[in-house]
């Protein structure tokens, strides 16, 4: 089974799944810590609208876990606050 890592831990996934779906299948529900109150967050809307599921993938922060396809060997890490804040909306 292909695998990526989440904060160093191996996460198996099935091709076609998103990073967020694979994390939930592995029993992991949060992968972001909010900027103001340091609250844990994970998937909420599941369809790319709410931006709660932001995560850092291969060093790039602010990726929507519900949209990012899981891929073999990528490194997914918890995003704290704004990451590098390079997402303009």
């Amino acid at each position, binding site marked *: 089974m292909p695998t990526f890592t989440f904060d160093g831990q191996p996460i198996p996934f099935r091709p076609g799944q998103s990073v967020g779906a694979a994390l939930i299948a592995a029993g992991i529900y949060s992968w972001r810590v909010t900027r103001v109150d340091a609250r844990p967050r994970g998937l909420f809307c*599941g369809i790319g609208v709410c931006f709660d599921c932001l995560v850092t993938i291969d060093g790039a922060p602010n990726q929507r876990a*519900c949209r990012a396809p899981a891929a073999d060997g990528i490194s997914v890490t918890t995003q704290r606050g704004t990451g590098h804040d390079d*997402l303009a909306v």
Partner: protein
Amino acid sequence: MTISPSERDQVWDVAVIGAGPAGLAATVAAADRGARVAVIDAEPAVGGQFWRHPAPRHEPNRVRDAEIAPYHHSLARYWRLRDRLAQHVAAGRAAHLSRYEVWAVQPAEAGAAEPAPGAAEPAPGAAGSARGSAGSEGGAAGTTSSTFFDVLAIDAATPQRHESMVRARTLVLAPGAFDLQIPFPGWDLPGVLTAGGVQSLIKGHGVLAGKRVVVAGTGPFLLSVGAGLVRRGATVPAIVEAASPASWLRHPGRLFSATSKLAEGAAYANTLTRHGVSILTKWSVLRADGRGRVESVTVAPIDGTGELDPDRARRIPVDVLAVGWGFVPQLELPLALGCATRAGASGLPVTVVDADQRSTVPGVYLAGEVCGVGGAALALVEGEIAGLAAVRAVGATGPAGAARAVSRPDEPEIADMQGDLAMRRRRIRLARRRERLRTFADALAAVYQIPGSWLGALTDDTVVCRCEEVTAGAIREIARDHRAADARTVKLLARPGMGHCQGRICGYAAECVAAHELGTPAAHRPVTRPVAAPLSLGTLAAGWPAAIAPVCRHQSNV
């Protein structure tokens, strides 16, 4: 397949945004009648929310269409539309631009079919136009409109998020909706998901969100989510429905006007009964609790005064809570073009369309949830009507050549007349069906209203804006101090809706909280947002429009 440079500069007859039931039906209807159509969608597979499918892959242990089929409805229709689209793509009549996120659409006035270089207006906030001319090869004859539309889309499949542009004579906007949410204490705990999100995990990824899931909110969609969960092996301790279905009895005529929808509902009810799922009606969520993630949900009945009764509350252990209160139409793109809106049956704004699904902006057609939440069956009908109308507008009328050759190879005029007649009959049937489904949808909306009980249960320390972490208390204070209940003032002062989601999730609730504080009704006016998809600063700085060819990535999982 990459679109060749000459094709890149072409003007499509129709650009369809969204490949859900509405967009798919519009695309196929238009391409079937000989129009050249580009359909653009953010997801890897066509189908939208109702027919969500996994990303097409070929590895042996991929998520297969077959394993998610039991959670779908009307799949035969989906396969027909998908196959037809594949045929049109293969024949070069259509392009499916999957994983492109449309962030702007705008008219590009041009005197003739050949727009002058730089004639288009630059996008808001972007540098000047750098694009060359656009030819008109391959378009249908007899163009009546001199207006073009430029669709600017971000390629989400490339890490650089390249921008592409599609130019078309007419637009069909079918971007659908997202789950309407209202806040309650604990709603931002991990493991609290939208009902649609739980459904999308099953349909799109083959993943069960949790083992023990309570489904709460209002609307028949909760039954569909609950049924999917138990069939997939989850325990559903309860479905918590805030409305009272007894009010159906007040609309018996409307109820029986959409029998196929009823059959679908009956199937869910059957599944739920078989699995012993209890449905609590006139109950709602009081709060969710847990350390680091949701561990329990407390639900309570709504009493005679319309408030939650904490004395009769029940605490239910869960690992996931799925909540949904209906759907919010995605109006960014229609609003950016200036399409008029009205208050929909739920009170939220929806777009105004005529009998042909024409918006108030010439050349722009709208279909599906953006015209008023009505579900997949209505979206299909509206999409087909919009596709047919767009074809008539660009002049590509009559049956496609192939159909003509089959019916009367030696007498093309007779074949055309027969085709016209068939088309007219089809349009009459579609109009009737739309009427019936719309009546049914309005009746549903009347029954499944969001009760005001959540406002009383909302503690001051509950986060309302999840992005900027603005609490109910902060919004109430601003409303009191400035006597402001309109979204704009509250947003400027308390900053809800200023984060990544641009108020899509909290906008409805923030307005309700402020209005409730002042004792006025919430207005829910349409909110224009500058961008409909996240951009990187790099894309904006690179100027507009970038001359990168869009890639047709039509693929399916068969």
